[in-house]
């Protein structure tokens, strides 16, 4: 029961985060595109990166909301947050200057706060994977028991 509740809370947190982040990027798409362009790590890619980021964020939300795909969703969320965190780390380490391209209040974060915030979500993603996998496994076990009993 507690595990189920924990999973629901994690799903809720990730959905809120990604919907919020993606919507902000959509609403200020031009600004987001410009900011991505300013990033020295992404200059070579140009056009398709902004759309890709927003698309992936929405896909993760869908995966998390469909119960059967939730484990995949947690993996995707975990991977995406890891990627964002590694990106911030790379910017802080290698870039001669620091551009910002996160929407809304996330833009107000300092880069170190950002790093901590993101790392927190990486851990939450990992927690989601473990809990959900346990849940799925339990369910599978129960189902096979039920089949056996028949």
């Amino acid at each position: 029961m507690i595990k189920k509740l924990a999973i629901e809370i994690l799903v809720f947190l990730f959905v809120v985060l990604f919907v919020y982040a993606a919507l902000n990027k959509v609403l200020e798409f031009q600004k987001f595109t410009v900011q991505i362009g300013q990033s020295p790590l992404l200059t070579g890619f140009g056009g398709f990166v902004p759309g890709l980021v927003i698309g992936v964020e929405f896909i993760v939300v869908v995966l998390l909301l469909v119960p059967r795909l939730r484990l995949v969703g947690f993996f995707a969320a975990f991977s995406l947050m890891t990627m964002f965190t590694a990106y911030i780390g790379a910017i802080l380490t290698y870039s001669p200057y620091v551009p910002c391209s996160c929407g809304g209040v996330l833009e107000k974060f300092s880069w170190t706060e950002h790093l901590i915030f993101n790392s927190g979500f990486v851990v939450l993603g990992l927690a989601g994977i473990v809990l959900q996998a346990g849940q799925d496994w339990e369910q599978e076990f129960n189902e096979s028991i039920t089949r056996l009993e028949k």
Partner: protein
Amino acid sequence: MRRLMVWVVGSFAFSVGTVVVLIAMSGLLKDQRNSFLREFPPHPVMERDTLNLIYNSYYLAGGNGHTVYLANYTTPLQVLIADLRRLDTMRVHLKVKGIMDQKFWSVRVKVDSPNFYVYDGAVPRIYRGETGHWSAERYLYDSTYFLDFVPLDSERFAIRALGYPVKENVLGRILPDVPHLRMEKGLLEKQVDGMFCTDGMMHYADDTERLVYLYHYRNEFLVMDTSLRVQYRGHTLDTISRVKFTAAVLRSGAEEVFTLSSPPYLVNRLSEVSNGLLYVNSNLLAANENQGAFDAGSVIDVYDLQDGRYVLSFYLYHFDRSVRLSEFRVFGDYLVARYEDRLVIYELTSTLFKTRDGHG
């Protein structure tokens, strides 16, 4: 359980790997060397003294061979006077007539002995006074907005302003006789957007009566007389003759935000004109340069303003190995460098700094 672990580690590796690929493809790790050469003669400058300013809000407002004036961003009406030899400091409070009646955006102070100026190009206002009494009154013809302000003498000023309605940088002069404002369109060459691509630094050398404008994002500088007639266009060492960035305008409602849409690709970061020489802190690494030395300091390239010829280069190393040069000025035989809240005084010891038309 084992399979789960493999998947977790796999996703983690994939994500980190993606960013590693991005880093590798970005060229940030690549050798950033350019095709030009620098010359580093031995010991062109000697560090003499260091002064702790305590606050990093001070900036260099002017000076001469024995005194340096520091103004303050946060307390705009205070000036710190530092003696270059004795290293003692004195604080003066500027009296500016009518300054309390006006709202300001960012008040700046410039000291050009025996005069000093308090100005804000966004209001716009220019106040002028003498360093003897440190009290200033409004200059009569300050009706135009400006971004940069350089006194030619106590009556005439060179400015850089944004044109209207086309927002492009234009150089011009404010004069005591009619017309009071004379803008010279066509001096700065637009390459991308006209606003960022023509951004640069303006200096006046009163010994040779030359006005110099050095672009931030390309390898060119204009040398002009006091009527803004171009004497010649000089080039810095590097090969960046075309501005490399792209720019964009973000519109939401009536609001317009002008911004770059690519990395800035800065060429010339800081500069100074003194004794017939142009000093440039370049952002680019030369072919014969040591990356370690380049990263440990700020490289300064020196050009002779007589003909734009390159003279030499030297480093101003980071203060405490970590604090990068914030700004620098050259007064007589001294180079005064500010590193956040520290002032370091160097002596220009090389005879190469003494030029034909400088007074050295």
